[in-house]
């Protein structure tokens, strides 16, 4: 029979790596499969200054240490894999990778986290890196002296719009609602900045240009009228969504496609647990992902011990 791991963890962000540290340290054979780079959103964080006990570090360094800890306890980690099939309903659960490899485990912890939303409109892929950006601190300086658009109406969009005025001559904030979903002080700061203009109740429908971005098409949502608007750059800050589409119809989720768990991180499927940003919860931080990962690992370990004992009795 193929190797059956005690615990298989899908996702190597803060939640998945923490779960891996706990289960492998407790001597449960553990495999982490990760679709992206190890560390997940942590590696997108320039500076982590609110993780208790760590004065200040980069998300990259923190992810590197978590990975090392997990590996030193014997956890196997495979990153940048593509999973094509999930079979989580049986006692022994399995996943199949794009290259045909199958991995099996007695329990599974889902820790797929979340990612920045993209607009998914024509031209977005083409002009990424030549006019479209998702990170003001990274790319702001390339837009010095240019007129740009910022898409979004939350705290990130408004704060980054203000930050970008350091470089650009004009920022037009395009937002889908007639009000912002940001803190009052962030709204006030953006509204009082002479370089910032607002186009409300509108959305972008296309990016156009030659070598680099030159124009965006804006649609007024109530009237459905569309028009072209000059923009040499566009920064997109429209929030995060959970990476749970692969688990639709497999585990229970709410209307925002967040995985429903109980306080012990159990999903509706026996032996399947979930942790981190992908579950239903209010606050999404490294600390909360780490806490979820710990609980999921301990509950999974208990489940595996019990299930394997039952199997022994049966056989």
């Amino acid at each position, binding site marked *: 029979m193929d190797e059956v791991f005690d615990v298989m963890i899908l996702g190597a962000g803060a939640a998945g790596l923490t779960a891996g540290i706990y289960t492998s340290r407790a001597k449960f054979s553990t495999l982490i499969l990760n679709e992206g780079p190890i560390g997940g959103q942590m*590696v997108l964080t320039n500076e982590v200054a609110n993780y208790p006990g760590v004065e200040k570090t*980069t998300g990259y360094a923190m992810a590197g240490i978590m990975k090392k800890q997990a590996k030193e306890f014997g956890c196997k980690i495979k*990153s940048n894999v593509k999973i094509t099939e999930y079979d989580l309903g049986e006692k022994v659960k399995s996943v199949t990778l794009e290259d045909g490899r199958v991995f099996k485990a007695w329990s599974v912890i889902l820790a797929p986290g979340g990612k920045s939303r993209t607009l998914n409109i024509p031209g977005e892929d083409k002009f*990424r890196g030549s006019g479209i950006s998702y990170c003001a601190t990274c790319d702001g300086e390339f837009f010095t002296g240019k007129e740009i658009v910022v898409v979004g109406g939350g705290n990130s969009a408004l704060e980054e719009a203000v930050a970008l005025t350091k470089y650009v001559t004009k920022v037009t904030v395009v937002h889908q609602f007639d009000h912002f979903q940001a803190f009052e002080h962030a709204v006030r700061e953006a509204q009082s900045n002479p370089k910032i203009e607002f186009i409300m109740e509108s959305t972008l429908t296309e990016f156009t240009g030659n070598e680099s971005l030159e124009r965006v098409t804006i649609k007024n949502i109530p009237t459905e009228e569309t028009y072209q608007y000059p923009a040499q750059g566009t920064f997109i800050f429209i929030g995060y969504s959970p990476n749970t589409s692969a688990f639709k119809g497999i585990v229970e989720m709410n209307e925002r496609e967040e995985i429903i768990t109980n306080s012990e991180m159990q999903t509706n499927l026996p032996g399947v647990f979930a942790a981190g940003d992908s579950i239903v919860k209010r606050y999404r931080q490294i600390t909360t992902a780490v806490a979820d990962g710990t609980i999921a690992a301990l509950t999974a370990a208990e489940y595996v011990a019990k299930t394997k004992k039952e199997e022994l009795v049966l056989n």
Partner: protein
Amino acid sequence: MLQTALQEIETAAELKKIISENENVMVCCGRMGPMCIPVYEAMEELEEDREDVKFFTMAFDSPEANIIREDPSCLGFMGLPFTMYYKKGEVAHATSSIQSMEKIKAVLNDKFGK
């Protein structure tokens, strides 16, 4: 100084020497930011599989990196990192901004062979 597990090129002269001595070279020129780190991560992993390619980083803010910043293939680039693929000392391909593992693998296969 970039804190990655990849070897960092510090001078333009060093880059020229590397590309003249190695047939296939990939250099990611960036900072320790959210668009660059996923590319370094992918390269760290590819370094184990692709022995035919040499993988390096270069700090975008170093004046020595002008050799990449001002390369004609980077004209119009508006997103970090600038990733260069050199074949036999010449630029074979260049990309701007974050790239997925799949995209990087596709360029490596296309420009350097499978």
